[in-house]
């Protein structure tokens, strides 16, 4: 049977018996990887939760120094990129090479826009002396320590998220090249599929980061 070894192809590597088995295994593998990511980000969400509950006022003041409109717009950008990504996956399911390319490129552009806006925001924080370190100062609070903790978590969490976006951009680039070279078809589009899962996951992280970082007790300010 297939145990003797078959010629290895992209869709059927030698350790698998059928293409379906390989697709199932790859998809399961990506999902298991995503739950490791849930736990990875989870540790930071824990730190955030602990310190927000300990210093609610300081966190609210610190949060209000972020630009909620820019944050909301950036969130929208990322949601649009999720839409274009799932359209790319759909196109791959239908074997529409040109459509895959268009949607992947759109996703890439939107992802880069997000990162660009992020860079702008970080620069703002730098200018306002809200970057943790010797020059840190947040106006309107007595306890600078907890304020610094807020911004540490802000930079750590959005930074970790941005790192994942950069990796996602890398993946998209590779996918675009592979699509251009005709690697994918309706029978074999697993890399597009699982890259989509990754991209959506990174979007979900941001879906939580946005309200937790930008929208703390805005009604008070």
């Amino acid at each position, binding site marked *: 049977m297939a145990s003797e070894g078959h010629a290895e192809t992209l869709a059927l590597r030698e350790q698998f018996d059928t293409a379906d088995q390989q697709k199932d295994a790859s998809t399961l593998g990506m999902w298991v990887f995503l739950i490791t990511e849930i736990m990875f980000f989870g*540790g930071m969400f824990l730190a955030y939760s602990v310190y927000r509950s300990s210093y609610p006022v300081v966190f609210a003041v610190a949060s209000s120094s972020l630009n909620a409109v820019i944050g*909301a717009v950036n969130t929208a950008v990322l949601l649009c990129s*999720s839409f274009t990504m799932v359209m790319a996956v759909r196109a791959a399911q239908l074997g529409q090479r040109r459509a895959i390319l268009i949607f992947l490129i759109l996703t890439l552009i939107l992802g880069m826009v997000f990162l660009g806006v992020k860079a702008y925001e970080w620069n703002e924080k730098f200018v306002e002396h809200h970057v943790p370190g010797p020059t840190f100062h947040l106006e309107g609070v007595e306890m600078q320590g907890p304020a610094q903790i807020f911004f540490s978590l802000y930079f750590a969490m959005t930074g970790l998220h941005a790192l994942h976006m950069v990796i996602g951009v890398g993946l998209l680039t590779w996918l675009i090249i592979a699509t251009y070279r005709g690697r994918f078809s309706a029978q074999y589009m697993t890399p597009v599929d699982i890259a989509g899962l990754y991209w959506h996951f990174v979007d979900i992280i941001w879906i939580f980061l946005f*309200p937790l970082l930008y*929208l703390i*007790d805005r009604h008070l300010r």
Partner: protein
Amino acid sequence: MHEQVDSVKTYALVWIVLLILTAVTTAVAYVDLGAFSVVVALVIAVVKMLLVALFFMHIRHSTQLTRLVVMGGLIWLFILLLLTFADFSTRGWTGVPGR
């Protein structure tokens, strides 16, 4: 695994709802709901997450195993948060310093 191909309409609808919810959560943040603000924000975020997960990540069409894996991840995050807060939220209840 998911042979079913969803329609463009489905995806577009979900996309629009996600954008609307983003606007809502931003606007509601400026309304004074007291302690409920954070609850509302998290509920909206969870709804958005579910939309992305069910429709964009195809959990709607996925196997039991996939759903179990996702549930497992979320439950484990919950365990981390809940049991740690068992500590932080009960500090000082005895009135004894350091306990």
